[in-house]
């Protein structure tokens, strides 16, 4: 059964939320879901753009308080 791993990238400027997601995506197994937590408003657009281009799957994206919760499934 695949796991949901939470990546806390709130309040960070370098390497930043998308870099953190790419780092953990490399370590994940195909089928795993990763949940990125980000306070960077750009993440809501940046992450789906990369996910679509590289060929993974967006599971969901919602803003709770000041934090974006973005779920992505590793597809390749």
């Amino acid at each position, binding site marked *: 059964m695949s796991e949901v791993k939470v990546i*806390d*990238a709130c*309040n*960070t*400027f*370098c*390497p*930043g*939320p*998308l*870099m*953190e997601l*790419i*780092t953990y995506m*490399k*370590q994940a197994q195909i089928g795993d879901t990763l949940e990125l937590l980000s306070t960077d408003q*750009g993440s809501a657009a*940046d992450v789906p*753009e*990369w996910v679509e*281009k*590289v*060929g993974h799957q967006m599971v969901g994206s919602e803003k709770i308080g000041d934090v974006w919760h973005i779920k992505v499934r590793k597809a390749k």
Partner: protein
Amino acid sequence: MRILVVGGGTGGTIIANNLARRLSAELRTGKVSLTMLSASDRHMYQPGLLYVAFGQMMPDTLYRDQASLLEASIEFHVDPVKHFMLDERRVKTQSDRVFDYDILVIATGSRMVPEEIPGLVEGSETFYSEAGAIKMYKALRNFKGGRVAIVVGVPHKCPIAPVEVTFSLHDYFKTRGIRDKVEIKYHYPINRIHSIENVAKWAKPEFDRMGVAYETLFNLKEVDVQNKVIHSEEDTEYAYDLLISIPAHRGMAVIEENRLGQAGWIPTDRHQLTMEGYDNVYVLGDTTNLPVSKTGSAAHFEAEVIADNIASIVKIGTPVREYDGKVYCFIEAGHDQATYAMFNYLNPPDLKPANKSMHWFKMSYNQMYWSSVRGLL
């Protein structure tokens, strides 16, 4: 109180020296012992490798004997740890010696792993090792013109390096009078040319001015060495004549082998800098899994916090400081100009235009580092 520092890089050395001074009385009376275990008897100033790659520094100037950097009260052994037994508060070294501790500091650093990308080792130049930097310089010197590609792995040590090497390549080829015969193309993993938004905003017009092409959302998948073509995970490709890589990194193998953290990065509290589940184990520098730059600068500021806290635990029984994510990075913008990025968890950097003064400050810091690592700056 037995304090054990594992790792003799920037962070470990600053912590050990700071503790030796703060706890000098306790060390004299034997109330405290302070031991460092390192994999090497030499200490390298790693940022200097970028200069070696452009023929601006000789590699022998980047080293000092590790023992010469340490306060005399620090017991120093060149004997890297092989087994961490955290529940027993004990480590075993390569020579099978056992060291018990009350407080452990893990500062083992990171290593590049270009072998994880097919073709990258044999197909590219890199400046992340002494041998690599020398080889890169020779390749640059023999380069007569053509397409130069820069590729960036994730995660990597020194996030500013991709931008710095690009500026330096432009200046190097310009100085040799062949810039018009060289096409430089920069490839970056996310959808802007640097992870820090303000660095990206500053560097983009500079790249445009220098005629540096760039492709974002490019994560290297493989290098076709025979045909000299790089392929991305995003299904794009580029034919090159000379490939410069900033390879992806992992934590040290001993961390993975001891199951202390996935990919060698130890889960660490972002403010206390303690290992998750172990209040007596501190982690810093590249070794942490924190969303903080893997740089000597981060290790330096983390080391100051940890040294204060360990000293206060000895003196009053409790830590007194928290790490706020502070990082200060020089940014070399070519061979005669520089700027800097200073930021923490909550405040982004505010980049100033590059200037010659900051470049000469950086050149001075290249020497001042040896005072810094002794804990004097």
